[in-house]
């Protein structure tokens, strides 16, 4: 876990717990520190507690136990409208009876900002999301993407330092979603605001965030930058939740500092990095990314362990080939290869040998 309570931490969850019914904890002992200007994503399946955390930060839910601090000040008992946190909702929550400009003007009006200043700020915010000409429209007259931009502009117009986003792109189609991901990222970088972003879409989390907190069962399973999260998952949940993943079950045969040999259930031996296995004889779940599997013998280390595999299916996907193999008795082992001129297309029924660099294969908790 990255440092908590350092000087630059802007938002701090300190031992926060949340229970709705007094019997079950939805959030169990959350400790999280977010730096100023950071883009942090809370990622997790539904019911993992990520939205509850966001709502506690926004003030719509109260923490059952523990403290939430914003800029060094405890905010547990401050009502939402005094927290000064911008928020973008899943369904945008644009007020349907107001025009776009009125929507943006609303947070400024309740802050008693003068008319001319209000208009200038609204215009600036609209220009920022490239919606300058839409001030007079009603939300219902806008497309989903346009509404999304307005919702973003509204959360930013009163110059909040912290902006919360609750699955803001969930209602958009794939192409627009990808476009908006970059746009939100750029705007937040340019303004230097702190963003806490909740999503269940791992691609979104990886492409946008400085750090990602993976939630499951009311706890943060791993908090790390995207590359680390993807390449070095700390446990089997994170490994399987982030990206595509091949898993094999086995027992630790031999363990060194940074190399462990695992005997799979069918007796084959493979090389792995020990992540959270403690010693010889431990049951382990071995995880390997499909794009890190190699079947070209020349590219493997000379003494590397290899596995026999039978090609079951070859799928052409344009930029990549996706091949399904039967490995160690399992027939859902996937290999992804780049569609390059020198790349070989495997044929179903073909017998090959596969292997990998030991550092790409991680022995995790079973």
């Amino acid at each position: 876990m990255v440092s908590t309570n350092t000087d630059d931490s802007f938002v701090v969850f300190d031992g926060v717990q949340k229970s709705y019914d007094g019997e079950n904890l939805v959030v169990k002992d959350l400790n999280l520190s977010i730096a100023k200007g950071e883009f942090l994503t809370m990622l997790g399946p539904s019911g993992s507690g990520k939205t509850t955390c966001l709502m506690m930060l926004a003030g719509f839910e109260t923490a059952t136990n523990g403290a939430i601090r914003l800029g060094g000040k405890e905010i547990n008992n401050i009502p939402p409208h005094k927290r000064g946190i911008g928020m973008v909702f899943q369904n945008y929550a644009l007020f349907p009876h107001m025009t776009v400009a009125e929507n943006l003007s609303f947070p400024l009006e309740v802050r008693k900002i003068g008319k001319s200043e209000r208009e200038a700020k609204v215009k600036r915010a609209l220009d920022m999301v490239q919606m300058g000409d839409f001030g007079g429209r009603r939300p219902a007259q806008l497309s989903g993407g346009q509404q999304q931009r307005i919702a973003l502009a509204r959360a930013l117009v009163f110059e909040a330092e912290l902006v919360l986003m609750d699955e803001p792109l969930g209602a958009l189609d794939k192409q627009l979603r990808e476009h908006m991901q970059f746009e939100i990222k750029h705007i937040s970088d340019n303004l230097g605001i702190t963003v806490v972003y909740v999503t269940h879409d791992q691609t979104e989390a990886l492409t946008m965030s400085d750090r990602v907190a993976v939630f499951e069962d009311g706890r943060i399973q791993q908090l790390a930058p995207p590359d680390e999260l993807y390449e070095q998952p700390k446990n089997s949940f994170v490994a399987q939740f982030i990206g595509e993943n091949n898993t094999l079950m086995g027992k630790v045969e031999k363990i060194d500092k940074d190399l462990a040999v695992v005997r799979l259930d069918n007796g084959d031996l493979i090389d792995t990095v020990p992540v959270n296995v403690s010693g010889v004889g431990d049951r382990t779940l071995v995880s390997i990314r499909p794009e890190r599997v190699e079947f070209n013998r020349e590219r493997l280390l000379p003494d590397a362990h290899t596995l026999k595999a039978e090609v079951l299916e070859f799928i052409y996907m344009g930029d990549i080939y996706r091949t399904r193999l039967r490995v160690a008795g399992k027939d859902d082992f996937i290999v992804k290869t780049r569609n390059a001129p020198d790349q070989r297309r495997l044929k179903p029924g073909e017998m090959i040998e596969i292997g990998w660099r030991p550092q790409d294969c991680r022995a995790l908790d079973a």
Partner: protein
Amino acid sequence: MTDATNSPSTGPMLSADGTPLKKSLQIALRRQKLRALALVAPLLLFVLISFIAPIADMLFRSVENEIVSETIPRTVIALEQWDYEDGNAAAPSDDVYAALYVDLSEAEEFKTHTRLGSRLNYETTGMSSLLRKTGRGIGRMDTDEYTKQFEALDPKWEDPAVWVAMMQSPGVAEILPETASAWQSWQRIVANKNDVLAEEQPEDFIYTMLYRDLIAQPASAVAAYSGSGAEMLQTADSAVDGFEAISLREQFLDIDEDWADAQIWGTIKAFSSPYTAGYFLSSVDLQLTPAGVEAQPENQQIYMLLFGRTMFMSMVIMGSCILLGYPIAYLLSNLPLRTSNLLLILVLLPFWTSLLVRTSAWKVLLQQQGVINDILVWLGLVGDGDRLVMINNQFGTIVAMTHILLPFMILPLYSVMKTIPPSYVRAAKSLGATNWTAFWRVYFPQSVPGIGAGSILVFILSIGYYITPELVGGTTGTFISNRIAYHISSSLNWGLAAALGTILLAVVLLLYWVYDRIVGIDNVSLG
């Protein structure tokens, strides 16, 4: 492109087989339309027969006035020559009395003169008894003198067959117009009695008309007639000048002095046209008098007061329903589904009890010896001597009707509020709005369609409410609908009831229009 149908030079778009595209589309859609029509046809028919048609009939009754011109058509025509002059105006000439004599002779047979009396009695009191009395006396007039004199002249005048033959001859209608007209009445009277025309001696009024015709016609005209009974007629024509004349005016005055009153004749004339604005004038405290449109006497002006009271009380009831219903609907829409369903059942509970029971319950609660007064007295807040009067007045009506109509406000409000996502208020708060601002600027405007729908519902229901004001309204809490019901079932003045109803309908439509202009009818939602 090679697609010829797309080229602009070929004119209208054609479908593949060359027919215009519009036409083939119409043919394709016709089946669907017919199917849709067939599906709604039973309901449409039902509504037309049981709802639209009766309403149209009632609306028509508010102007319909054919009873006068149908019952006494000759009198109506004869009165055209006569003008009412205010005050000491002279009663009409003998011609009018003669016309009335024939008309009433027929009406008496069909008993329609009593209906006419009731109708005219709405306008001038005394008309009903006058016409009844006249109906009784019309057969006992001295006009049998004419009959006797004709019979004395020639006994053949007694023979109905002679009459039938004569009245069927061509040309007789020209020389004996009044007799011919009266003869038609006589034919209807005989037919009504299921008798044979050729076996019944005509009644006195036929002889009277014959006398009048013969007096009026020059001898040459009668001499020119050559049809059946020509000789008898010529004999009679030369003899009538020596007949003893009976003044019909005197005969009517013998029955009732009122027939000399110009006011009576003025009323008949004023209401002689088949359509009248009289009912509508009555509805707004005016009246159509022989001299023109006048205000009703002060002590009879009631309808404008009732219309005003109905509007005012409906507004108050609507306002109370909004005030009471809004918080409940808000609570309902924000509770978990299980709890809100339970509470909703409680809201609907009043619908399961009879309207009569609920109203009577308020009587028990609010009366002077009732539960609430008893409690207040027991608490010492009110002395036993001066118990509050809360029923049989406006207060009682407003309380009872607010209670009865409250669900009609809560339900649309609830269904609209249910559709307002909680994220709007959250968004407002996250943007810095206090609870009140978030409610007033964000939540409330979105619940306005529900208020609109509920208000229209409650207002329109209460404006036409009848049972509750009738039971708990006393004298100060009754509505215009109670008056309409009175005219429908007690005074039987359906025309006035229809006019009042029409005005009420027009007012509702007008308010609906005003609402549409101010709030916009698309701003009304039931959820």
